[in-house]
């Protein structure tokens, strides 16, 4: 039974010779074949390449030991470039795009011995909170297939939660790792902006996008971060600050730490079971010696408004490159001129949410509106960051809900964009400030749906978040469940 395995157990079994890499990889593909038709977590499965890699390990078993992730299957969100494997970004405009190079994070994982089993479904260009805005159909939540898995990394979250793969990479621009991780009951970490290279990540909002790990256990997430973090010459915004030893530090003592409880995150209408779970979690942290303190982040409520100006503005500029010339779809049924080809290609290639955000972004950047919208939002962004700076003078991390409500039904919010955007209220501020956040699964609610919470830390303090998450799971003797499917 591979579904429940984490990286450590998997590696132990491989090194002891209990199973071969090929057997492991095959058994995940069996699960994918059985479950993916219902869950739709994968857009592309890279079976042949994975088996080939597995055989190389099996022919040369000492190479499994030499590489930190030797023989570990992984799924990659489909907005990260994978050499020779189709990378669609959930969009019709890139439906046949096969990148000639690997994203830096993908390259590092491959060098560490990880085996890519496939590319996961996502909201088109990572624009969405439900994975319903994919050109390849919605992903379903493995805990209740009538519900959304969250988004935009919904495919990665659902694949890990249902045991189709042990770990995955996601990307987070406004909550796209943390929210689906929470909806699917797994661990998801959005690192500090600049901690992980964005080279080879298809750009959505460049000042916010960040790649991060997703897994069933804190240890798995720490291991992946260890591999992908660090300066990359191909991304000038990646920083050269030394990378912490996330795995070695994971079990350090945390009883001198202070967790802040920001009142603004609890003044909203929150689902009572989510509220109660967080109160319990606070109690558990206190029981293991962590101190808690009330803090205030007064500009929290302005996060959604600032984000939905800044992110679409950056997106409208980034998505100019899809012009039907260099790669991707070209639509020109009447053999018309260049401008006509641009218009037709983009009309046919982009879905409704992407068009909406391009329109919104173009509007707020257009002549006469820049000051009122983009500049104003960037100033509010500074105030939101200042809130965090002040709060972190009093505490090491903040505890907050991930979302105000549990996963909603497929179709419930898809026609009301503003309603969908408001679901991101608790994840957006950390993205705007560039600070790291982790989604930690706790338990199942009365309907059998996962409930958890978010910890947010200061810039480059991923270690603090991982240690606290690990201590929490150790205390509750957390043992990840796999939904019956």
């Amino acid at each position, binding site marked *: 039974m591979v579904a429940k395995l984490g990286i450590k157990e998997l590696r132990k079994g491989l090194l002891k010779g209990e199973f071969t890499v090929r057997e492991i990889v095959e058994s995940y593909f069996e699960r994918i074949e059985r479950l993916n038709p219902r869950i739709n977590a994968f857009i592309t499965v890279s079976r042949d390449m994975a088996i080939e890699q597995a055989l190389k390990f099996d022919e040369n078993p000492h190479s499994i030991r030499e590489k930190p992730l030797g023989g570990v299957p992984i799924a990659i969100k489909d907005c990260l470039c994978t050499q020779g494997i189709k990378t669609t970004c959930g969009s019709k405009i890139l439906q046949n795009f*096969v990148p000639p190079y690997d994203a830096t994070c993908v390259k590092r994982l491959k060098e560490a011995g990880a085996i890519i089993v496939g590319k996961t479904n996502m909201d088109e260009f990572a624009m969405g909170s439900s994975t319903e805005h994919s050109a390849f159909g919605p992903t379903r939540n493995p805990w209740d297939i009538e519900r959304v898995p969250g988004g935009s990394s919904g495919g990665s979250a659902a694949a890990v939660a249902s045991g189709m793969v042990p770990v995955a990479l996601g990307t987070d621009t406004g909550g796209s790792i943390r929210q689906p991780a929470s909806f699917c009951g797994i661990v998801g970490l959005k690192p*500090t902006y600049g901690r992980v290279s964005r080279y080879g990540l298809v750009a959505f909002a460049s000042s916010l996008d960040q790649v991060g790990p997703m897994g069933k256990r804190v240890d798995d997430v720490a291991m992946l971060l260890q591999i992908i973090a660090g300066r990359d010459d191909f991304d000038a915004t990646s920083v050269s600050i030394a990378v912490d030893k996330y795995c070695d530090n994971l079990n350090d003592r945390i009883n001198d730490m202070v967790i802040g409880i920001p009142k603004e995150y609890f003044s909203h209408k929150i689902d009572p079971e989510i509220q109660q779970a967080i109160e319990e979690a606070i109690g558990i942290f206190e029981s293991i010696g962590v101190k808690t303190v009330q803090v205030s982040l007064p500009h929290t409520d302005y996060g959604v408004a600032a984000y939905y100006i800044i992110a679409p503005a950056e997106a409208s500029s980034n998505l100019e490159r899809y012009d039907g010339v260099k790669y991707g779809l070209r639509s020109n049924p009447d053999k018309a001129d260049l401008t006509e080809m641009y218009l037709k290609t*983009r009309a046919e290639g982009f879905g409704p949410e992407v068009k909406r955000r391009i*329109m919104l972004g173009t509007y707020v950047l257009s002549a006469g509106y820049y000051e009122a919208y983009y500049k104003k939002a960037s100033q509010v962004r500074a105030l939101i960051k200042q809130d965090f700076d002040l709060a972190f003078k009093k505490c090491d991390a903040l505890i907050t809900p991930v979302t105000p409500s549990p996963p909603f039904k497929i179709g419930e919010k898809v026609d009301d964009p503003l309603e969908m955007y408001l679901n991101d209220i608790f994840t957006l501020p950390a993205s705007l400030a560039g600070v790291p956040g982790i989604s930690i699964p706790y338990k199942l609610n009365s309907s059998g749906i996962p409930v958890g919470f978010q910890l947010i830390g200061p810039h480059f303090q991923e270690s603090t978040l991982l240690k606290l998450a690990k201590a929490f799971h150790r205390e509750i003797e957390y043992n990840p469940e796999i939904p019956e499917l």
Partner: protein
Amino acid sequence: MENKITIDQVRHIASLARLELANEEEKRIARQLASILEYVEKLNELDTSNVKPMHHAVERTNIFREDVLKQSLEREKVLANAPETDGVFFIVPRVL
């Protein structure tokens, strides 16, 4: 600020963004943009007259590297994803 978005405004923005929209899309987007823009009005509750805008999460200044020739992608690979090419150039429809 007036937040009613007219169909003419939608068409103007769409042409700036090189997006062709169907009639019903124009109407829907006009309505949805108006509601989103009404919501973001919220930002005007805050006095930001003395706040420096923030454009980067982590402050960075120019990053330089040595200007040396490095291996880049081969032409064949770069052109492999192009909708139309003659093997040397990208081919586009007539411009004028």
